[in-house]
């Protein structure tokens, strides 16, 4: 679905991505994981064209993310960020249906789609007329997810979608996200710094460090056959807080 070939990206003197080559397979959930500043968010933003690579290419469904095709391709992707990125002047309903209305969808097409999404994300129906400032953090992330899914995109990109939520809500939403991913079968790319979350939601884990990909595989691969000592260190650091780990 997404193919990155020898992608470089720098911010001034800092190298964010240092020659990344990676393929994201259709219908799979991939979790990008690694310490802060490892380049995982940069990689995600390159996938949706918010950033352009200094060198190398990014392709979506075999098509290059060029300026001319960018808008069309973005409508085939959904994007959710940490704080939701909801528009505060629009109600939950208006946020979710914004793009559909902009593209001229009829009410008869919008209403059932919205109803499906509300059911899928367990969003309280009476919350649709509220503004983001009147909803809880968890509810806002549900609205952001609905908005990302409204046009029924082929790919879903999530940048620390649960990062700002408290642990209870986070746990609940992790369960729900897993169900949603399973139900929809979309290509999902998820950025997280939490190994447990990555392992719980992702089919494949991509561990990054300083702009490079260290290892790609499932959690068992990372644990049993670490590509370099950093993999072990990373896993140990995360496990120290979870003596009875999820695995």
């Amino acid at each position, binding site marked *: 679905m997404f193919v990155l070939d020898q992608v470089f990206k720098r911010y001034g003197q800092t190298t964010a991505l240092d020659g990344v080559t990676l393929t994201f397979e259709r219908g799979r959930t991939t979790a990008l994981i690694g310490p802060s500043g490892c380049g995982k968010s940069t990689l995600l933003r390159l996938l949706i064209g918010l950033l352009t690579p200094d060198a190398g290419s990014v392709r979506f469904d075999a098509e290059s993310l060029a300026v001319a095709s960018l808008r069309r391709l*973005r409508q085939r992707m959904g994007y959710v960020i940490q704080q939701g990125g*909801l*528009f*505060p*002047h629009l*109600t939950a309903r208006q946020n979710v249906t914004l*793009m559909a209305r*902009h593209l001229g969808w009829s009410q008869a097409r919008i209403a059932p789609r919205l109803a499906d999404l509300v059911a899928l994300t367990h969003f309280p129906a009476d919350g649709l007329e509220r*503004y983001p400032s*009147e909803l809880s953090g968890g509810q806002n992330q549900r609205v952001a997810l609905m908005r990302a899914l409204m046009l029924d995109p082929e790919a879903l990109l999530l940048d620390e979608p649960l990062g700002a939520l408290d642990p209870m809500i986070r746990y609940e939403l992790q369960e729900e996200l897993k169900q949603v991913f399973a139900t929809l079968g979309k290509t999902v790319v998820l950025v997280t710094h939490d190994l447990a979350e990555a392992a719980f939601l992702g089919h494949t884990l991509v561990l990054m460090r300083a702009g490079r990909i260290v290892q790609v595989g499932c959690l068992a691969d990372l644990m049993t056959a670490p590509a370099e000592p950093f993999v072990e260190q990373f896993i140990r650091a995360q496990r120290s807080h979870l003596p009875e780990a999820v695995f």
Partner: protein
Amino acid sequence: MIACRAWASLGVLSALMLMLAGCGRTGDEVMIGSKRFTESVVLGEVLKELVADSGTPVRHRRALGGTRILFNALVNGEIDAYVEYTGTLTHEILARSEPQDAAALVARLALDGIRLAGSIGFQNNFALGIPESRAAALGIVSISDLKAHPDLRLRFGSEFMDRADGWPGLRDVYGLPQRDVRGVEHELAYRALGAGDADVTEVYTTDAEIAAYDLRTLVDDLDYFPRYDAVLLYRADLERRSPVAVAALRRSLGLIDAERMIAMNAAMKIDGRAEAEVATDWLRTRFDLASAAPAEGRAARLLRYTLEHAMLVGVSLLAAVVVAVPLGILAAYRRRLGQGLLALIGILQTIPALALLVVMIPFLGIGAGPALVALFLYSLLPIVRNTHAGLVGIPATLRESADALGLSAGARLWRIELPLALPTLLAGIKTAAVINIGAATLGALVGAGGFGQPILAGIRLDDTDLILEGAIPSALFALAAQWLFERAERAVVPRGIRG
């Protein structure tokens, strides 16, 4: 829907602009002008009623401004006639190299297509005035007598203090030794004399205050002051356009002598009677003319001021919104250009209103034109700045979210950025409106009407009631505008971003 409304308001705006462009002159109306002081206004009324009596349509644009504004308006054909003073004309329009006599003046005026028809019948000269009791005690009769009394306190109007043919020239010609000489408001100088806080001031010989304050006017024994004959000026082409009107205007020649002028000034300034009424009274006595128009009632007058004021504010504000919002957007999108743009508009704001108005008269004439342009320019800054600030203040994550959804730049601006900037933008428009309502009172200086008219008239006539008649409605208007904008804000700003 919203786009429709925007187009509709644009249509209304252009229609108003066209109306304004057309309202400089209407048909064959004879246009009389007057300067910004009582005597000139009443003389304007006299000319107007004489022309009206001949059956010619006529309008009086009252209290337009000073000599420069009136004379230019006459040369440009925005007015057809007004009463001027010969001394002023000599001083203002003859070059120093030209001979300073009456024949030279008539010839010079003819070059500009202007006729000097003759004297109205009185002079309004400069003179020095001193309270009668003081003059008698000190034995002062002429200006030369002042030399023997160096301790006298002299108070002059600021214009007289500064102009070369005022105090500086007078002092040099007579060799006056007084040290306690200060510039004050002309009206205040009279009061100071009346209260015994000052001894000598300059007077105009037809001032009603001379009698009211019992002043002795000193003999100009060295013939220093020029003669200020009140003369009728009109455009030469009026003889062709309306001989009847010219004949009517010429009936004013020799119509009013100095004594009559003093009495008329007294009726207005001391007794507080309206200029039109005083003019009509005299014409009725003299020619048995019927009053041309019944006096306008207070309600009708207030309604007219309100409409004029609302037009000035509404049109200039609407035009400013149409121009300033795109400029604000441009400034937000092109940061470097934006800095320059904001600085430039900031400089516009620092130009004094009066200077701006006067500078524009040659291009736009007198009336609503220059006032609208000035108000438009003053409205730009708050709107441009707030539009810019509102857009720049939008968090980058929201802009990226809009991009990530696949919205085009235009759709992002229209659906996301402008609505988010709306509260700030509206606050800018509200500020502009309130400033505008206050500033529009200055429009009366160039004949644009509005609440400034009674305020200026009130200052001229020293009539507090008249000042309040303009000041109170103007303040209420500003409050109403503020209230209206707050209502509008509540109606159009979504609950989610209301402060």
